[in-house]
């Protein structure tokens, strides 16, 4: 299942609702383009809603890390919301759980950007 990305604004935060898989090829490229596009437009607060992402491979994990570091370098912030169990387990196993700011409720996540 390919990755689909829907964007919405909530109180100055861009929420990207992702659905599908973030894997080598199209999924990783779509995510990279979406985040770089937002950052180039000056958006500093980006929340990735992963509720409907059932799988991220090592390429996708690398893309998430790149998004995080690209954002940091531009004084922007990328946070993660609503991990599925499989994605949660992958982030924990790879210790990326310690890198990202991970939230499990949207209102709290939006408020945390203030």
């Amino acid at each position, binding site marked *: 299942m390919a990755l689909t990305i829907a964007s919405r604004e909530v109180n100055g935060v861009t929420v990207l609702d992702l659905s599908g898989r973030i*894997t*080598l*090829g*199209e999924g990783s490229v779509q995510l990279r383009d979406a985040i770089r596009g937002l950052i180039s437009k000056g958006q500093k607060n980006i929340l990735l809603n992963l509720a409907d992402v059932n*799988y991220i*491979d*090592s*390429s996708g*994990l*690398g*893309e998430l*890390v*790149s998004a*995080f*570091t690209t954002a940091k370098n531009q004084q922007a912030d990328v946070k993660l919301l609503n991990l599925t169990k*499989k994605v949660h387990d*992958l982030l924990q*196993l*790879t*210790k*990326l759980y*310690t*890198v990202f700011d991970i939230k499990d409720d949207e209102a709290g996540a939006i408020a945390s950007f203030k």
Partner: protein
Amino acid sequence: MSEAKAGRLSLTLKSAVESVDEIEAVAEKLASEAGLDEDECFHVAVAAREGAVNAVLHGNEFDLTKQIFASFENNGAALVIIISDQGKGLDPDTLPDPLAPENLLRGSGRGIFLMRSFMDEVHFRQLNPGTELTLVKHLAPAGKNS
């Protein structure tokens, strides 16, 4: 191109993302048909996918003149998945530890770690040219797999 012989499925695939998806799907089916639970099927599929990514991306570097060879076998005691490429080869022992604090923000280098985390055995053999990866998942004896 595929060939099924004595319980082993062999595939010859091009160096493209579709081949990664195909190897993952076949591995997941192999695990499912062996009676592994959902988590174990996922682990086998992830490991096979990562092996295929390495073969296509780092091994053959998407060179369509080079091929990927994959075989899948349930020998009754274990699932054995072998993936080989025609690339320049790699030495897995020289790869940086992806869990080391200084490597956590690297954009790559987690594939072999995931394979080793999810499979019982992971072996590399250098070909000339290329790399052969063997992934093994032991099966519980009959009646002990539930």
